[in-house]
């Protein structure tokens, strides 16, 4: 600001330099994007790959016999997932106790919600298991696991007293009985 003249000329020159690097518009016929451009600027030179060429090696996707076991294993993992959670849930249940406060309620909500969510997205899970040979068995195990999980949640609700299973829970809905007789009177005035 103090000497606009001299520095202005310098700025102009740098602007000119940057203008030389950053063009107003440019067309690149390669697949590269800005990143590849910066890589290029990083010193890889001006090597232009032909269209369709990728630097990374493409994995071999042909099915091999040994992978079959892996898929089975993976599918069993998915199917047994809910069952594996049950001991964990039992522990949480035991720890959170039967008092009604915000944390146990949150726990119970989560415990109840997760199996329900899983049951709702059953079809998606089946699609996952499609590749397995024991698809139906795995599906059944998965279902049972989730049902057990929700049963556990219901049991927890029950032990916390959140289920309307007692007559007292329906007390508020009892209408006052209708009066059959009209009665009045009092002390002789």
């Amino acid at each position, binding site marked *: 600001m103090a000497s606009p003249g001299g520095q202005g000329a310098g700025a102009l020159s740098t602007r000119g330099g940057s203008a030389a690097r950053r063009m107003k518009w440019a067309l690149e016929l390669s697949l590269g994007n800005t990143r590849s451009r910066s890589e290029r600027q990083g010193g890889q030179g001006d090597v232009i790959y032909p269209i369709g060429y990728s630097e990374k090696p493409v994995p071999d996707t042909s099915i091999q016999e040994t992978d079959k076991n892996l898929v089975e294993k993976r599918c069993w993992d998915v199917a047994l997932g809910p069952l594996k959670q049950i001991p964990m849930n039992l522990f949480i249940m035991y720890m959170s106790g039967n008092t*009604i406060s915000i944390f146990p309620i949150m726990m119970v909500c989560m415990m109840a919600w997760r199996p329900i969510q899983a049951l709702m997205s059953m079809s998606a899970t089946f699609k996952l298991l499609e590749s397995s040979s024991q698809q139906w068995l795995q599906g059944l195990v998965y279902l049972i696991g989730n049902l057990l999980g929700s049963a556990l949640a219901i049991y927890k*609700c029950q032990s916390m*007293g*959140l*289920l*309307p299973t*007692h*007559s*007292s*829970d*329906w*007390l*508020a809905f*009892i*209408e*006052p*009985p*209708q*009066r*059959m*007789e*009209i*009665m*009045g*009177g*009092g*002390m*002789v*005035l």
Partner: protein
Amino acid sequence: QAKAPAAMAKLILLCLNFIILSNTVEAVFEDQVGKFDWRQQYVGKVRFSHFDTHLQSSKKVLLATEKNVFAALNTRTGELFWRHVDRTGPEGNIDALLLHGQDAVLVIGNGRLLRSWEINVGGLNWEIVLDSGSFQSACLVGYQGTVKHVAVLKKASISLHYLSNGHQKWVENLPESETVDYQAVYSGGNGDVYALGVVPHSHITVVSYNVEDGEINKQMSVEAPWLSNIQASCAVIAKEMLACVDSSTASLYMLDLHVQSQMTQIPLQSLGLEVDPGFQPALVSTQPNPARPPLSEFFLQLGPEQHLLLQLNNGQIVVLRDFKPAILVSFATTGEKTVVAVMSPKNKTACSVNLFSAESGRRLLDTTLIFNMDPNGGKPEKLYVQTFLKKDDSVGYRVMVQTEDQTLTLIQQPGRVMWTREEALSDVVTMEMVDLPLTGTQAELEGEFGKKADGLMSMVLKRLSSQLILLQAWISHLWKLFYDARKPRSLVKNDVTIENLSRDEFNLQKMMIMVTASGKLFGIDSKTGSILWKHYLDNIPSNAAFKLMVQRTTAHFPHPPQCTLLIKDKDTGLATLHVFNPIFGKKSHITPPTLPQPILQSLILPLMDQDYAKVLLLIDDQYKVSAFPSTKNVLQQLQEMASSIFFYLVDSSQGRLCGYRLRTDLSTELIWEVIIPTEVQRIVSVKGKRPNEHVHSQGRVMGDRSVLYKYLNPNLLAVVTESTDLHQERSFIGILLIDGVTGRIFHEAVQRKARGPVHVVHSENWVVYEYWSTKSRRNEFSVIELYEGMELYNSSVFSSLDRPHAPQVLQQSYIFPSSISTMEATLTEKGITSRHLLIGLPSGGILSLPKMFLDPRRPEIVSEQSREENLIPYSPELLIRTEWFINYNQTVSRVRGIYTAPSGLESTCLVVAYGLDIYQTRVYPSKQFDVLKDDYDYMLISSVLFALFFATMISKRLAEVKLLNRAWR
């Protein structure tokens, strides 16, 4: 979804837990004082009244009343300066009020006490106990120009006391007090005190005592065979002249107390006068200064409307002026001038008061004062005059008029009413609260739907017009708001008049209808306490019983609301009905039936006639029933319903409880009868449930989450008996729970070594009563609760005739640290809110005691289940916490009744306590769960909301910009 109610219940329990733990605070905050509540203080019917005259500028008038109250009123505003409430009954009865300077001397309790009050601040100067003996008369005694003593005349003795400290100067026995009936005491300031006695129809006895030592100076008896009562027909005038008037001989008699002589007879005919036939003539004299003899002028009343001003001039009686017609006359003195004020009827609605000079009987100029009589009030009964000297030495005055309906009115010249006090309200007998009507516009809208449709076009027009009216009302409301906002806050007053009365949003403002013992009815706005209408029913017998019933509420718009007051003369048993509109106080055009037979009880049925008036049944002494209104429609309905209409009658004098059933021909049949032998115990009170009570919850949740169902029998009666033997070892009280339809006795409890008065509240499934335990010398509360068990017999209908199982009865008792005056339970719209007991204490406090503390299920040993149920462990003492007083420092003297009414808000119950004072407030037994608090910070909340909203907007915009920038990079 099914989980929701249970979770809700748990959450509510949690909240309850929290409430209990966080110390239930009932008291109001400082800034809430007077916001929902008001108090009016009364004194009762005036017996004696004196204007404070020792200072020219004094603003006091002293009143001693029949309610045993001694008070000073501000003559400018009518407000109380101070008030002293003595005991009720003859023990606190004020026999005499003498005013001297700054001291007021009262004789109390038929001559039991002599008290002197300092009238400026109302402090007690001294009090002494007088010797026993029935009080006759008292007067101030002056000697040598100063007044230093007061003389008290009793049946057999006369005593003289110093005014300064009340010490007795001397006491003397009256001679021949067995035969002579001493009735008056008099002193003329010359050192003699005269006791005047009479042997009826024989002679007068005059005994003169020396002021200094009580020596008998003189004693004489004069023949007076015509005289029976000195106070009624005699007066002392001038210098020791006793003047008497007798109607049978139509003469005045004069007796000089100085000289032993005969009475001189002056026939009234010689004065050209005549006594009204059947009228007992009377004399009124005045003694402005007790140290000087009375004036020689006096009044002679010859008829109800004829008064004469007479003068004793050199032993001759001169008629100064004949006032006819004149209803009331009064002497008044200021400085050296004595005037007489005469009230004479002007026309039907007004009276005029004039001043006359006492010496000459001439009318004073410019002293006319007009007293407009209230058309809904009574006739003037007493006249009290306050005179003062104006700057030009002429006499100015104010009058205080007491009318038959116990209204006090202070009037200034030329007829400006300074204030009125409705002292009838000191004796409220019964009351009701009625909802206010909808506003005119609301009613207009209602009317639109009420009327029959007559074509599309007219309906549209009608709708448009009513919308226009609504718009107009809204604009005027806005304009009023705007207009008021400019005025300073203190000036904005919402004057409630009968025209702009309307129901508020939450139905918190209601009309209080109060029936007083004098027969005056009042309509009072419950929000402000202002009297909106009053109506005096004349010729009400003195011992009448009243029963007020609401026949039609304001809910049936085109039909006006209707209340019926049953007035029964206890002597003859005959009753009359007064039917009126509770909002305007006007007598209804419906003519009530004449009741030739004595009436025993009345019963209001939930049946309605075609005009939506509830049917009132009246039971006469032949046990026949008459209906009001008795249209064909009603009679038909009654015939259909007859087999399910029952009533019970309790005759305390015979110890009889009987139940009757209505027959179709409106006669009755006795279906049950219980006799309680009157030699052993007598029935004190019978309490049923209030018909407008709602019970929301049909049972109680136990700790194991099962339900204990309440026994909610709407026909249950609680009968309280007290033993006739009052010996403290043998006295007892009994309580009997009996079904009013079948006469079945469910429970009977006897509290030995206990005494009344028993206060009892019966509601829901519980009965609470309070009594005095003579064994432990303390007040005790006892609570009975009835439960049906763990299963309901029939949950849809309740019939007393079909309930085979007797209820389970639980009972518990507690010690209460104070005696109580009255008790009532709170009442809310739906019965969801927990209940409190409102207890009026003799100290003037009104205590709101949670029913939770009076619960027979309170365990002695705390268990997990009882803790789950939130039961408080049993402790025998009930504490009085100061924050439970709902009337903080607004003491309500002599509470006789508490009335509770539900409001439109479930949390709120309206309370009126009445006795000598009237106090109105609101209570929130479970706190205000349905309203935002008074101090709710709308500003903070809304500003936070707005700030958050703008912050969201700004940050959204910023985020967008940032994203865009990143996209460009």
